[in-house]
């Protein structure tokens, strides 16, 4: 007779409990309800107001529920959305927009040109607190008639239509918003987007239901749950355990470990975010030899290969290859001999180095601190001794707005509309709170481009600015980031170059 001990019984019971009662979902099962482990929380549902309105990472959630004025395709190019046509008149004093017909809001009410006109007017009203009000206020006297919206150009803004698929460029429901107010809208938001909000638990998840009347066609998944999992290790565990089907932004080492593994696929796609080093025009950066040496001493290819496992694209201007004003002929070569020579001309050497501070975040972007550590090592070889100061991103914003950054400061810049004015322009135009390089020569070059009406001339102007910046090392562009996405093998993900993970672009494989 077999003896069954108390310990054996306990073991068996535990195993049965573990396998039966607690069993979780598996990656191999057919996916009915898509679950995404998202890397940020959604603080607020109004995509036009407050800090979340300008947080690029949140835009993917907003774009699931709300449509922007103009649709942005995964390659960043514009396409007809709620607006099917748009443009200026001949002398660029008026804009005309044609509104798509047959679209309904999530509550079933018809979407009209009035909604577009109201959304534009509201965005331009300083009282609403739209952080991009300064752009929207360049249009005035917005009127709707039939399916056409017209507006006067108060001041010419060449990128106004690009902002219609960028931050705060969303169409909200006039009648519904006026009926329920801001609080009511926050509690039960509606849009015209591919998904409708079914349930929202702040700091936890949002459950979305497919919009059966979506003008772009019903999405593949009837239900999508977006879980807010802000910790990267937990997101990796979510996908590894099969609790989530898609996740993004994890360490590249983890991405490499899991992609192609059992039931998990991976996509690494270049996005519109770049890493760069701001140069402040204070000592010792007023010496062009120091700036140029600092730029030429950095081996960007090596940084990408060694620190980012190859997931990054070295850049020499603030334009990525996807941007409108990208000019591959502008290059800043890795040339340590030249860097040593330039420093020697100013009396510096590895034995007698020039000393300054470089600021960086730590953990805000992939390997940010490690990249700066490596750069400091490369600089040391040519005669630059940089002291690293780690700061929080909030401090960076404050110091940059007050023009008090250190001589060198690492930062990342997002520009999902790919226009040079929103990359080189705002980063390098002295009078804005975003730029710390205040040289008059650059101000004189950039100034006329803001209102330039001839598009070819405008783009050529920005390329000239980029060339001037590269030749004088007024900023040190480093790399274009690559976004890692892990997904269950049962789904196919279309990445968006803006970095937004859009549920309606995820299909069954």
């Amino acid at each position, binding site marked *: 007779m077999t003896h069954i001990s108390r310990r054996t019984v306990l073991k068996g019971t535990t195993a049965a409990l573990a396998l039966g009662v607690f069993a*979780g979902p598996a990656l191999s099962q057919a996916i009915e309800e898509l679950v995404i482990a998202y890397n940020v929380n959604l603080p607020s549902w109004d995509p036009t107001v407050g*800090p979340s309105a300008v947080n690029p990472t949140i835009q993917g959630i907003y774009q699931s529920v709300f449509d922007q004025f103009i649709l942005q395709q995964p390659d960043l190019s514009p396409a007809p959305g709620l607006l099917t046509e748009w443009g200026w008149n001949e002398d660029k004093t008026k804009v005309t927009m044609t509104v798509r017909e047959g679209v309904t809001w999530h509550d079933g009410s018809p979407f009209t040109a009035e909604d577009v006109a109201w959304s534009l007017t509201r965005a331009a009203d300083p009282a609403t607190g739209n952080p991009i009000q300064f752009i929207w206020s360049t249009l005035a006297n917005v009127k709707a008639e039939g399916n056409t919206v017209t507006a006067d150009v108060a001041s010419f803004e060449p990128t106004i239509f690009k902002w219609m698929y960028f931050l705060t460029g969303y169409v909200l429901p006039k009648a519904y918003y006026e009926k329920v107010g801001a609080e009511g809208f926050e509690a039960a938001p509606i849009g015209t987007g591919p998904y409708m909000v079914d349930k929202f638990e702040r700091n*936890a998840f949002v459950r979305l239901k497919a919009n059966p009347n979506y003008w772009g066609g019903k999405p593949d998944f009837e239900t999508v749950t977006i879980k807010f999992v802000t910790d990267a290790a937990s997101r990796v565990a*979510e996908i590894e355990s099969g*609790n989530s089907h898609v996740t993004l932004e994890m360490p590249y080492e983890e991405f490499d470990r899991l992609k192609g593994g059992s039931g998990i696929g991976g996509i690494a796609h270049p996005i519109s975010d770049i890493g760069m080093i701001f140069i402040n025009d204070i000592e010792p950066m007023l010496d062009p030899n120091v700036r140029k040496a600092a730029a030429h001493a950095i081996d960007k290819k090596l940084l990408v290969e060694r620190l980012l496992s190859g997931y990054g694209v070295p850049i020499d201007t603030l334009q990525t290859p996807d941007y409108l004003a990208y000019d591959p002929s502008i290059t800043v070569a890795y040339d340590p001999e030249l860097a040593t020579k330039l420093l020697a001309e100013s009396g510096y050497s590895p034995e007698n180095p020039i000393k300054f501070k470089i600021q960086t975040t730590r953990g805000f972007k992939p390997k940010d601190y490690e990249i700066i550590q490596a750069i400091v090592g490369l600089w040391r070889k040519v005669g630059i001794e940089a002291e690293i100061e780690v700061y929080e991103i909030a401090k960076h914003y404050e110091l940059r707005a007050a023009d008090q950054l250190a001589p060198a400061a690492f930062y990342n810049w997002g520009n999902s509309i790919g226009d040079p004015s929103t990359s080189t*322009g705002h980063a390098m135009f002295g009078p*804005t709170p975003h730029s710390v390089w205040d040289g008059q020569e650059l101000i004189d070059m950039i100034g006329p481009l803001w209102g330039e009406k001839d598009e070819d001339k405008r783009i050529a102007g920005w390329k000239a600015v980029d060339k001037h910046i590269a030749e004088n090392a007024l900023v040190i562009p480093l790399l274009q980031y690559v976004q890692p996405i892990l997904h269950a093998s049962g789904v196919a993900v279309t990445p968006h170059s803006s970095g937004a993970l859009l549920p309606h672009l995820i299909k069954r494989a």
Partner: protein
Amino acid sequence: MKLLRATLLRLLTMSVTLIGVAVVVFFVIRVVPGNPIAMMLPPGATEDDVARLTALYGLDKSIVEQFVIWLGGVLQGDFGTSISLRQPVMPLVLGRLPATLELAIFALVIAVIVGGALALTGVRHRETRTETAVDVANGVGLSIPDFLWALILIVLFGVLMPIFHISGRISPSLDLPFVTQFYVFESVARLRFDLWWDLLKHMFMPALALAIPLAAIISQLLKQSLKETMHLDYVTLSRTKGYSENHVILSEALPNAMLPTLTLIGVQFTFLIGGTVIIERLFSYEGLGNMAIDAVINRDLPLIQGIVIVFALLFTIINLLVDMMYAVLNPRLRHA
């Protein structure tokens, strides 16, 4: 009468503490680098735009003026509006507090059960290998911080044996009939054990991560205390009366030995609530701690103030309860 006077005195001290916390927090978070307006400045914003947004959020006034306005609101029950969440602060904070309290209480229950069991086992088998094993377990439990326990548990029970949920408080697919935010208690009250089970599967790992270090502390202190008590005359007397060792430990030694442990549990419970901040983040648990981190990242000044004040109120209440409980349980204090 004495007790009433002592309680009133404690309430007065609590009020002074809370006012002190409010003042310190208000001024400190405005002095540290990083302001909410800089966080929301988009590319292309001008100095005028900065000024417009600064005025819109009332940050253009002096810190003293801001404090007076804020205090005026607080006295009327208005703790301001969250900058990032765009809703009144106090309903937001009180809406999240129950989740954190349930997690902390669950962790405390686990810690007391595990720590108590370890201590009793160690004393029952003192000076044997079992006691050594208990000491080793205590050492491991204490030397590994709670966030590391969290990661270990995620790997063990979230990935390798996926039996518990890694993130959240409850499964999104469930329909929630709750009218309060105390989901665990309400699910039991409604006899909805399916919801209760789901809540437990979400809460188990974060609670265990919080509980392990506290369990080790409880075990160590209670074991030591029990061992000292075991040498006292009245315990020896009960042994000579022929009571079993288990009876001696549980009925004679434990009531006296647990008094210092109770005080420690009270103090440690406040630390445990503080520990929920990082643990809630790791498990994406929708509690006050998780909200606190977002508030700090976004420099949401009104929300930070609200959260800190509620935490401070909670800590003072716990301390008061511990003191009162100690007075009730300790005969010397009860009759003093």
